[in-house]
Structure formats: structure tokens, C-alpha cells
């Protein structure tokens, strides 16, 4: 499936580890969360090229101690209306300060592309149903956001009000 990053189609350098395959001597693999402990036990220290695939109904807090070891985390959309991955992305990217790639997979629409970017997703495994132009057009279909600390490059946020003392408690009429 095509992968979009930085508004371009890129080569997908990652492979999802098949069910019965061993992770030994592999690199550039994404392992299912359920097999993580097993894989990590065998994974050489300092070896990069590891990613984890996270179902959208698990608590991503369990990943926090291990995040530094992953170059990629993949999140899932079983259906486009199921928005759990937005919060998972936000938690990993913003709360846990994850610096690697967060990729969205599954059923999501171009109309959600901008929200995913704002939530911290920076890689997209898409079906070939929509052309690249259709996707990137939605990055800033609404070019302004009220969510100042979710903003991603290109989206305008409200300019700060003029500097000056503001009351400790809001002034009510």
C-alpha cells in the first residue's frame, strides 16, 4: 500500500512481521504489540530498525517505557468513524514526547488527514482509492485551527492578543 510522508509518496521501508515469523536477525520490522515482550527479549541492544503496531483499543501507556527503542509506531483505524487512534497519537507524540515516526493504517479518509497531522501522525499507509493530490489537499482544507498546541506547519493559529497585563481573573461584565 502506498505510504505518504511529507506530502509525498515514499517508499515503504518497513515490513510487518508475519504471525509465525521470528524477529531474529531482522531489521526494519514492525511487530504486533502482543509479541513485543517476546521480540524485545531477543533484540540486540542498540539495534535500530524496530517498530510496533498498536491496536486501537489498548492503553498506549504500556508503551511509554519502551518508546525510545522504536523508530516507528503504527496506529490503526478499523473504521474511519472510530477515532481512538487520534488520542493514541496525541498521547505518544505530545505527552510522551515520542520523536520517531507515527503512522496511521486502516480505514481513514482524506478529510481526516489534517486532524491526523495535528494529532502527531506523520506517516500514512493509504489505500489506492484516492490520489495523492486528494490527500494532501486536505492537510489545510481549513487552514486555521483553534487548537494552538496541536497546530502543525502551515495551519494558522490566532495571533496572541496584544501584550500587556491581563487580569488574574477574567473580567466579567
Amino acid at each position, binding site marked *: 500500500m502506498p505510504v505518504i510522508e511529507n506530502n509525498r509518496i515514499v517508499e515503504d521501508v518497513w515490513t510487518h512481521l508475519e504471525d509465525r515469523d521470528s524477529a531474529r536477525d531482522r531489521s526494519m520490522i514492525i511487530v504486533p504489540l502482543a509479541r513485543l515482550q517476546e521480540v524485545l527479549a531477543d533484540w540486540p541492544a542498540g539495534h535500530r530498525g524496530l517498530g510496533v503496531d498498536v491496536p486501537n483499543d489498548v492503553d498506549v501507556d504500556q508503551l511509554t517505557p519502551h518508546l525510545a527503542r522504536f523508530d516507528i509506531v503504527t496506529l490503526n483505524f478499523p473504521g474511519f468513524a*472510530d477515532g481512538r487512534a*487520534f488520542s493514541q497519537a*496525541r498521547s505518544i507524540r505530545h505527552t510522551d514526547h515520542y520523536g520517531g515516526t507515527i503512522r496511521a493504517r486502516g480505514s481513514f479518509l482524506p478529510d481526516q488527514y489534517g*486532524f491526523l497531522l495535528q494529532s502527531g501522525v506523520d506517516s500514512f499507509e493509504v489505500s489506492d482509492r484516492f490520489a495523492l493530490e486528494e490527500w494532501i489537499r486536505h492537510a489545510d482544507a481549513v487552514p486555521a485551527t*483553534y487548537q494552538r498546541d496541536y497546530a502543525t506547519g502551515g495551519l494558522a493559529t490566532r495571533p496572541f492578543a496584544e501584550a500587556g497585563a491581563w487580569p488574574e*481573573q477574567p*473580567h466579567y*461584565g
Partner: protein
Amino acid sequence: MNVHVSPEPNMYRYDEFDRSFVDARVAQFRDQVARRLDGTITEDEFKPMRLMNGLYHQLHAYMLRVAVPYGTMSSRQLNVLADIADKYDRGYGHWTTRQNIQYNWIKLEDTADILDRLAGVEMHAIQTSGNCIRNTTTDAYAGAAADELADPRPVCELIRQWSSLHPEFTYLPRKFKIAVTGSPNDRAAVRVHDIGLRMHLNEQGERGWEVLVGGGQGRTPMVAVTVRDWLAEADLLPYLTAVMRVYNLIGRRDNKYKARIKILVHEMGAEAFSAAVEKEFADAQMETVEVDARELARISSYFAAPAWETLAAFVPEIEEKKLADREFRQWLAANTAAHKVPGYTIVNASFKPAGGIPGDATSGQMRAVAALADKYSFGEVRVTHAQNLTLPHVRTSDLIEVWGELNSQGLAEANIGLIGDIISCPGLDYCALATARSIPVAQEISTRFADIKRQHDVGPLKLNISGCINACGHHHVGHIGILGVDKKGKEFYQITLGGSSAENASIGKILGPGFGADEIAGAVETVVDTYLNVREQGEEFLQTYRHLGAAPFKEALYASH
């Protein structure tokens, strides 16, 4: 030449940022419609998109729900709502139980143009439907009520902006409704919302918010639990974010009828739910706090008080008319409320004519109220939860003229808060979800109780009618509630008693077996007559019910069967 210029009311005004936001949203919707029509996206994919712009498809046509943020609008906006009714609908609109307006006869091909027209007066239909955060509602008397601590609307506006096209919370398990009250007399029903916020002072005298979560109606009505007794205002948005994140992550998605946050709170238990929120709140970064305080200060400046005149509270002319004219006296008693500034009065326009369709407004009536607002209320109008309109700041000395003008428009029926002030969903006459009609029931009951003197004798009584178990008529919190169901293909009605959305919120209890369409109005009349027979001196309906329980009513309705 006299050029009439509408006064600019003291409410939030869009700046360039807000305007660019809403304009882009309309352009985006126009594009989504085009892609629906050329088949690029399916109806299943398009449906959530159009819902997020307030466009339903109902029984007869598309229905557009336009947001009236926290129920506040200017006369200029109200005039545009009238124009839209005339140009794109059948000359009328409907005030909803969440302070919005609905148009019943909209075409998809016109919708983007309507949204453009609305954007021109700083209005929109963003997120009035869909599994996202809906219109934040409040007390229709906000900024005017004598009993309020402070105007809650700056916080409502802060929440509105924060919740608009929120990237993380636009694909929730289900819809999400927030209500805010600035008064201890809760007219915003905060205890039956997904999140309710109640302004109050802590022991240090600082103003903050009680946070209530998990109230709601529908199939499983529940009263909210308190997750925070007192939250500093500066923490509001981060705290709300924490609640939303917990809900978004672990709210049920397996069953549409178990997907509201109230189910999550109920199933987890209040303590476990609160703990989850507090943990999320602690984890999340607080960098937005300073920003929020600045934002709130900026927003608050729009809500500065109008230029009050210094007036006497006692207006002899009004007092004389009160004595001399019974109808005026009745109207004052029911349709007006105490204003915090001496010499001013809050005035309600009743959209509940006896035998009429509750909450429907013709374009002519809308324009008339807009003109009244211009002349008498600083250009400001409110939509109430009871499907009426309010003129919040009328000089007491102008009351006779205002009454006369409302009367000429059929908007002065003296029934606000009384049994004639029926709250009714559109029901099977309009709604694709309904199982029974509600409006004809409302019409028959209001006709039976048309006598104003009788209504005043009965006293405060909230009667709510829902045409299906989704409870959009809020029947669970009616003092008398009516629920329309389908019984073997025929319309059938259940009565509940004792609901309340006020401070001591309660869910109404089913009284007994239901009634057919030709019996229900008579049954309600029997309930009211029973109350009149058993009440103690000065006791209102709800008090009598809470005092005596269902027994006298059951006996009156069922014993002879």
C-alpha cells in the same frame, strides 16, 4: 433620511481569524457535497461530514440545525435566520431544546449557500450533529439574571472555540453535550449533560467550577456525578481535554445505544472514572494554561455590560397597569423575570400559542422580535431550552409597548413555565427516528388548558413530550413527561412524573400503563386535576409529587379501570 442601524450587542464578535475559519469550513463543505454527487465518496462516508455541518436527512427532507452559540444572537443574525426561512425553507424555523434553530425543508444543493449566508453574520452549523462536541448551552438569562454569580458566556465561548474542529475529538464514540451555569438556580440543566459546569466560589472566595460528568437522557437517563468539586478556571480546558481523552479512548463503541459517556461513568463507577480523568489531567502538559487565561480575558471583553441607564426599579405606570389590566398582570407574572439591574426586566416571547406547534416561528415573528431587540433590548436576543425566545435587557418602563408588540405577533401568551409552555420534539410528523407523533398531543393539551387563569392557578409545571425513546423532548426531566411509542402499529403514550433538570435533578418515573392517542390528553388533565385536589397551600406540582409520591395520581388514573 433616517437610517436605522442595529445596535451592536455585547456578545462575541468574530475577528479575522474566526471569519477565515468559518469561511474555510463552508468551502470545505461545498467540496464535500461535490465529491458526494460525483461519487468520489459514498453516502456512508459523506453522512458524518454533513452531520458535522448540521445537515440531517429527516422524514420529508434535509433538516439543517444552525448553531446559536449558548443561545445568544443579535437582531442582525435573527433577521438573517428569517431570510433563510423565506428563501430556502417554507417560511418558518423551529427553536430547539439546546438553544439552536432547525429548518425542516432544506435542499442539499442549497446548503453551502445557506452556510455562506450564515457566515456573513458570524453564524454556522458546525458540529450541531455528529459524534463530536455539540453546541455548548447555558442559561437564557445569562448576563441579565438577578440570581447569577457572573455571566457564564465568556467560558461558553472559550469552550466553543476549543471544541470547534478539534483534531483529536471529532470522531468520538457518540455525540457530546456540554452545559454551563453561572447561577445557583440552574436553568441550563447541567446535571443532565455529558459535562456540566456549575460556577461557584470556593472557601477562599475564588470563582471556579464544579465539573459534573455523565448526565443525559435518551434510552438510559442519568443524573451526572461530580468529578471535581471546584476547578480553577485556568484549568478548565486542560481538564475538559482530559475528560474527552478518557472518553475517546475507552468509551464504548460496540453499541450505539451504550456509547455515551454516561454509560462509561456508570460502568466504571464514579471513583474509577474520576481517577482516570485526574491521571490524564496530571499527565497532560499544561502549556496551554497561560494561553487560555489570555484568551478568556480577550473573550470576556466582548461581554462587558451594555450601557445601563440609571433607572428606578419602581415604575408607577407599570404598577398601575398591573392593577388595572388582568392580562398584563398575568403576562408580567409568567413571562418576565427579575433583572440584576434596577429598572430593567427580562422578557420572554412565548412561541407556545394554545393549539399551536410548540417552538415554531414564522419569518415574520423572527423579524418582529429582532425589531423589538433593536428598539428595546440592546439588539440582543436569546433562545431558551424551552423553545422560546428571550429579550434579556428591557427597560421596565418599556414593558407595556413590548407586550403590545409581542401580542400583535401572537407571542404574548402568558404561559412561560406553566403547563401551556409545552416542550415538544417534532415527533413523527417530521422526524425519521420517531415512533409516535408529539405535536398533536401538545396541541390538544394546550387547547384544553388554553384558559390562562387556569394555568396560573395550576402554577409552574413543566410538561415535556418526546416522540421516541431518544428523548429529544427531554421528557425524563419533565414534571410531567410524555413518551410516544409504537404499540402494534398504533401510537401509544406513557406518562412519567417527577422529573426535574434543576438543582435537585431527578429522572421522572413511569406512572403506569400507557394511553392511546385519544386518551392521553385527558389523562394529563386528570393528573393536573388530581394535583389541584391534593396540593397543600402554595405547593407547586413538583413539590406535591415529591411530597405525596405517585399514589394519588395512579389512583385517579387507574383505580376505576
